[in-house]
Every structure is written in C-alpha cells, then in structure tokens.
C-alpha cells in the first residue's frame, strides 16, 4: 500500500501531493492518505477521475483516506 502524508501542508500542496501519488498508483493498489482536515473538494476530483475512497476520522483529529480505482461495471 502506498502512503502519502500531507498533514500540516497549506493549500494547494495536499492536492498536488495526493494527485502526484495517484499518478503512480497501480491498478490494484491502494493509496493511504493522512491529512489534517476532511478534504471535501478532493472527493469531487476523485470521483471525476474514477476513484473510490473511504475516509476514517482518527482520534487525534486527523483523517485517513484509502483510495482505490473504482471497479468498472
């Protein structure tokens, strides 16, 4: 599983870093993102680009997002 940690980075760096990591993500791999706030606008980008994701709010106030390619129907 690939991991990208964007906690504490100012906009738009989290977006850029997550996007760069997605470019190298293998078809059956998962990208784990650690981020300091829930990135609602990222969800639009993921949906438009054909990814699915699951967000978990961590107890320390950060968020963990697991991103995979959406299955083709």
């Amino acid at each position, binding site marked *: 599983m690939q991991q990208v940690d964007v906690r504490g980075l*100012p*906009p*738009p760096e989290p977006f850029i870093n997550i996007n760069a990591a997605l470019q190298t993500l293998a078809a059956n791999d998962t990208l784990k993102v650690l981020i300091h*706030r*829930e990135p609602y*606008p990222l*969800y*639009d980008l993921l949906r438009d680009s054909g990814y699915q994701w699951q967000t*978990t709010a961590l107890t320390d106030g950060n968020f963990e997002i697991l991103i995979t390619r959406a299955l083709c129907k």
Partner: protein
Amino acid sequence: MQIASLSTEQAPPISVPLRYFAAAPVFLIFSALLLALSGSNPFADLRSGAQIAATHHITLGVMAMVMLGAIQQMLPVVIGSPMPASRIVAWLTFLPLIAGVLLFSASFMLGKMFMLDWAWTLLGLSFLIFIAASLLSLWRATAQNATKTAIFLSIISLAGAVSLGLLLAHGYAAGLPLSYPLLATAHISLALGGWVLLLIIGVSYQVVPMFQLTPNYPKWMTSALAPALFIVLLLKLGLLPFETMPSWSGFFVECLFWLLACSFAVITLKLQSQRRRRVPDAPLSFFRLGMASLLLAAIFSLAALIWPQYSDNLRTLSALAYILGFALSLIQGMLYKIVPFLIWFHLFRGGIKAIKAGVPNMKEIIPEPLMWRHLWLQCATLLTALMAPWSTEVAYLTMLGLLLQGILLAYAIYIGIRVYRHTLKRLMQA
C-alpha cells in the same frame, strides 16, 4: 467515523462566488463617490444621508456581497454540504442585492424616501433566498464542527438584522412613528456584532490554521466563543427597550461583548505569531491589521462607556475602526487568498490533461506586489479615517483611499479572472 465514497457534486461553479467578488470593489468605488458628493464632511455626522448611503454601500455592497459569495463557496468545503440549486440561488441573491443597494443609496442621496420601499423589497428578497438556502444546506450537513455553529448563529443574526433593517426602511418610507434610534441600535448590533463578527470567527477557525499554518484555535474557544457572543447579543437586545434598567446592566453586557471579541483578536494574533512558515504574506498582514483594528474598536467603545461626555466621538471612531479597519481588512485579505485558490482549484480539476498542460502556480495568479501596495493603502485609509471626523481635507483623503482601494481590488480580481480564462482556453486547445 467512516464516510462513504459516493458524494454529489460539492463545489459550485467558479462563476458563483466570482460574480460576488467581482462586484464588491465596484461598490467600494461607489461608496467613495457618494461620500465625495455629500457636500460637507460626512465623517462628522455618521447619521447624515450621504454617510448612511455610503455605509450601506460598504456593508451591503462590499461586505455582504463578498460574504454571500464566500459562504456559497465555503459550505461545501467546510461542512460538505453545497447550497441547493447553487446557480439559481446565486442569480436570485446577486441581482436583487445590487439593485437593492443602488435604490437604497439613491433614495437617501435624492431625498426620495418612497424609493426605500422598492429597495427593501429587493434586499428582502435577496436575503430571504440566501438565508433559506444556507439554512437548508446547514441542516443537510452531517459534519459537526465549530464553523458550522458559528455560521448558523451568524445567519440567524443576519435574519434579525435584515428584518429590523426592512422595518426601518419601510418606516422611513411611510413616515411611521417608530422608535428609530432603538431599532437602529438593534439593527447595527445584529449586523456588525452578530452576522459579521460571528461569520469572520467561524471562517477564521478554518482559514487561519489552513492557509496561515498556525496551530488550531484552542478547543475552549471554538466550542464556546460564538454561542457566548450570540447570547451576549441577545442580552443586549433584551435590555434595549427597558430604559428603567440600571445603567450598570448595559455597561456590563457591552464590556462582556468587547471582552469576547478581544479574546478572538488576541488568540488569533498569538496563533499567527506561532505559524510554521515565517515568510511575509500580504493576506496574513491584512488579517493582522484587521485584528489590531478590532482591538482598537473595542478600546474606543469601552472608553465611550467610561467617559460618556466624549461618547459621540469615541463611538464614531469605534465604528470606523470596526468597519473600515476590522471588517474591510479581513474581507480583502481573505479575497487575496481565496480568489487565487479558487482559480487554481477549478483549473486543477481539469485532471491529468490540465496538469500536463500546466496550471499556473497559485502564488502567480494575483501578483504579490499588488497585494502589498493595497495593504499599505488600506493602512493609510484607516489612519486618515480615524482623523476624518475633525478635518474635511483629511476626509477627502479617506475618500481617495477608498476609491483607489476599490480600483486596485477590481484590477486584482480582473487579473485573476483573465488568468483563469486564458489558462482554460489553453487547456481546451491542448
């Protein structure tokens, strides 16, 4: 807590917030022209017709204009709940707001008070649609955070301020025997102390740590400040009709309000001093100027309580520091952060094609030297405004400052829109 991966379209089209941001500087220019047309020194009497018209150009045409656009942009980002029918809501709030402000000022400048009935109908329509759409968006949101609470209380305050404003406007138009000073005090308290302050607090909880890389606001503040301020405002309104109440009660409530407002300013300045990247940043400096102005407004208002014989002058200075210093600095500073980010974000959403073709760096969208020039101009305008009540010559310098600021802000937003359009065209051709 786990969140499903299916969501509806979150961000509104870029045209939704940008139309408000592009219109706001035009009203800043108009406000300067209205003040210049007044014939005497409008800063010497804040209740003069020209001053009321110009003040509402700033509070409605600039401040509310930007705040309405910003809320429509922020709700999906901060609480994950977009405005319903964002394009329709945008047109139905934007156009009546413009027409309403113009009619409002025309009625005061021309002395045709019957036109206030047209103005309040349009302004009422604009705010009614905005308030209903925002409340629906807040109600639908599953996210629970301090920003959501502050925005909710801010919008409730707006509803109260608008209702009282409509009553005052209709009262003037129809010559009704209303208690105007009392209603005006309640209207101003809810508008400036509720709608403006609570919204700025709620937005700061997100924007300050996010863009300025500061630690988060302390938990006690995010959970208690906005509700406490709202309760104090309600107490203040509750005391207004009772002239027989002991004077210490009003004194106590006003002190409490300014104490809470000052705690926000002090904590924000402290957090900004702890930011992780200590590089000069014009929007951050606008923010700091705004916080210093809020403290100044508090000092003038508290001094007015202690020395009632100078109350008129001190309250004028407090109003100038609050509107021109606190609100205008913060709003313009936030625009210089939000507009480049929005443009970058909407271009970046073009996906891989956009990234390969090249999306401009966020810092290159509006040139930083322009922002710094605007900041110094804002400092000079504020300084002259605080001397303007005593000198007509200085008052003209304030008007010139407002005029130049409007032109500079309009130019900055025009540059941003031009970069967006050019880049979009290039991406389409790539």
